[in-house]
């Protein structure tokens, strides 16, 4: 993992002290709310429906066990004993008091964390493949690039007041688990082009009220030119992006209004104007950062674990968890383990302080003290020996965390919705809870197979509903909550925006409709098909009919 150097420590402490002074001035009335709001937002502090909310950055979703324990302590000391892991790999506290926030930020700084740039019209926390460094299909670890971008974008004077927020994602694998085509900038690292290491650059993707798939700006940007190229994109956006209309201010609008050809030309012209004088520095800095992400000295293990095979044969629940919650690792004899934060009837992504500590303990015992947060609001243990999986599962079970549903129908992604959020138009979490209850039976979930259900409580789409196989969007219709269903969304390399199915459903009708659709799919699917394949084969109209069959 990356460790702060003296500059990082000093920078973060100075920001905490600066914010402490700003809070004091707010409390004495020296600053009014209009003056204070942009300052608190720059430090991740929102005012929500019931209370303040503090969003803490988890760079590219990577956490140490020590950091996870500190998050647990903060939840207990300053909040109500839990935290919410988000679709952007961060954590949110839902009940902090303004007067406590400087102290919380101090506690975060103690473990090399902060809440800077988790809000506002700046470059937000950089996200990455949660299996970075360990995935079997990985070409290059994305974390060093993500860390370089984090450092470069932190407090960047030119890009702190953009037309709108800006999100960058990085993957270094063949399968896209970082959703790069739906980010303001998405990067895929290449090493196999014969040109050395470099990046395929996408821009202009996004969800929200106007979902758009990004365009490929360049097939290949050499590694040393990365920051210069991103700077060129940022400058074009900063200068040309719309500031007259908040809803048209994201880069996706600029890219799609101007068209790919013109946008690429603007970027290339800007790129040519920027002196290439920092390229050695960039390459050297990347090499320095990569030292922090050197693969651990994996012991030489056979890929097959007899202990695992035996334990699976003896314990059906464990065998199910292995089938659903482990992923292929690049090192023989190792596995990636997914800790699901989606219990039946639970709030997706929520973890109590005790659960955070249990996950930290599990990371220390079984995963070299490291954890990741995924965009699916789950926690990943990246370095687990297959021989240890049974002991890991047993320890997770004790904390109620051995839930076998990763990427299955009850692994529902949901934003906080109207239960917390001031912007929401409908609740998300109760719909998610009902889905997990309706489809709780493990064998049914396995039979249904991989499927993404994603729920947003408003058109801002924090629950990423546009890229769900089944997307659910909560809206207000004639004074009541109503839910619009989209089908066929895909966040991966085969990116697709879900297609709207038709009139919305009242809250009490949503899960019945989904159940009808699932039964139709089970009836019509061909051998080996997953939901998305059946959807693409049968087409939107047939699937949509099933949704409304008895409506």
């Amino acid at each position, binding site marked *: 993992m990356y460790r702060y150097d003296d500059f990082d420590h000093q920078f973060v402490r100075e920001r905490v002290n600066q914010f402490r002074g700003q809070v004091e001035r707010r409390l004495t009335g020296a600053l009014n*709310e209009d003056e204070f709001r942009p300052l608190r937002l720059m430090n991740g502090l929102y*005012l929500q429906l019931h209370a303040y909310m503090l969003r803490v950055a988890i760079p590219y979703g990577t956490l140490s066990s020590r950091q996870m324990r500190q998050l647990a302590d903060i939840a207990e000391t300053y909040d109500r004993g*839990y935290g919410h892991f988000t679709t952007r790999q961060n954590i949110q506290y839902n*009940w902090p*008091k303004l007067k406590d926030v400087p102290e919380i930020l101090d506690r975060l700084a103690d473990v090399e964390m902060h809440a800077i740039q988790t809000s506002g019209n700046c470059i937000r926390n950089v996200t990455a493949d949660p299996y970075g460094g360990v995935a079997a299909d990985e070409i290059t670890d994305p974390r060093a690039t993500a860390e370089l971008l984090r450092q470069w974008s932190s407090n960047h004077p030119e890009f702190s007041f953009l037309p709108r927020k800006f999100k960058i994602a990085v993957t270094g694998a063949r399968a896209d688990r970082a959703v790069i085509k739906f980010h303001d900038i998405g990067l895929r690292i290449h090493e196999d082009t014969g040109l050395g290491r470099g990046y395929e650059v996408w821009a202009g993707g996004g969800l929200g009220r106007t979902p758009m798939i990004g365009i490929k700006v360049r097939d290949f940007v050499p590694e040393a030119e990365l920051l210069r190229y991103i700077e060129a994109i940022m400058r074009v956006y900063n200068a040309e992006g719309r500031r007259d209309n908040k809803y048209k201010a994201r880069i996706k609008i600029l890219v799609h209004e101007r068209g790919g050809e013109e946008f690429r030309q603007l970027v290339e012209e800007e790129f040519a104007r920027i002196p290439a004088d920092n390229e050695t520095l960039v390459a050297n800095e990347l090499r320095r950062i990569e030292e922090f992400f050197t693969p651990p000295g994996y012991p030489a293990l056979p890929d097959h674990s007899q202990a695992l095979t035996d334990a699976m044969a003896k314990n059906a629940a464990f065998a199910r968890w292995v089938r659903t919650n482990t992923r292929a690792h690049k090192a023989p004899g190792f596995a990636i383990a997914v800790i699901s934060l989606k219990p039946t009837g639970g709030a997706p992504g929520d973890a*109590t302080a005790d659960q955070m500590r249990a996950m930290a303990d599990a990371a220390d015992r079984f995963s070299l003290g490291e954890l990741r947060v995924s965009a699916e609001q789950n926690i990943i243990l990246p370095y687990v020996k297959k021989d240890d999986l049974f002991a890991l599962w047993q320890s997770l079970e004790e904390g109620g965390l051995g839930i076998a549903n990763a990427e299955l129908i009850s692994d529902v992604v949901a934003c906080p919705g109207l*239960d917390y959020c001031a912007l929401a*138009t409908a609740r998300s979490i109760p719909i998610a809870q009902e889905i997990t209850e309706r489809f709780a039976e493990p064998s049914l979930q396995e039979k249904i197979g991989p499927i993404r259900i994603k729920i947003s409580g408003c058109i801002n789409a924090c629950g990423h509903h546009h890229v769900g196989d089944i997307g659910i969007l909560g809206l207000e219709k004639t004074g009541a*909550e109503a839910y619009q269903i989209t089908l066929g969304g895909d966040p991966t390399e085969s990116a697709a925006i879900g297609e709207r199915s038709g009139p919305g459903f009242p809250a009490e009708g949503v899960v019945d409709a989904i159940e009808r659709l699932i039964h139709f799919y089970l009836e019509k699917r061909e051998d080996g098909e997953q939901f998305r394949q059946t959807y693409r084969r049968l087409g939107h109209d047939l699937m949509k009919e099933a949704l409304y069959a008895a409506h």
Partner: protein
Amino acid sequence: MGKKAALQIVTANHLTEGHSVFLAEDGWTADHHLALIASGADEAASLEAQARKDEDRNLVVGVYLVEVALDDEGRPEPTHYREKMRVRARPSFWADDPHVVRAPRPTRVFAGDAHVSL
């Protein structure tokens, strides 16, 4: 302001604590049943103006009017589902959720300007 907005109360967030509060006779309260009720546009404007003074005094933040109807006991209840959620002061699914640590809510949080008469 339409006919439906005949009855309104004022809400805001407590500046230091963050939770939702309602303007009552003797200050701000977490119990919306105790809120002062404005009838008609003129009273609502007056009530809101009163609340804004407490915003200027840095007691509360984010003042706005909420449409209400009276329940059987004559107490104000919001008519819109968003505000119904807000007066619960907790997520809607918390009612039977024992694992979450919940802080008790004060009913009377502090005294604001006590001279509101409508």
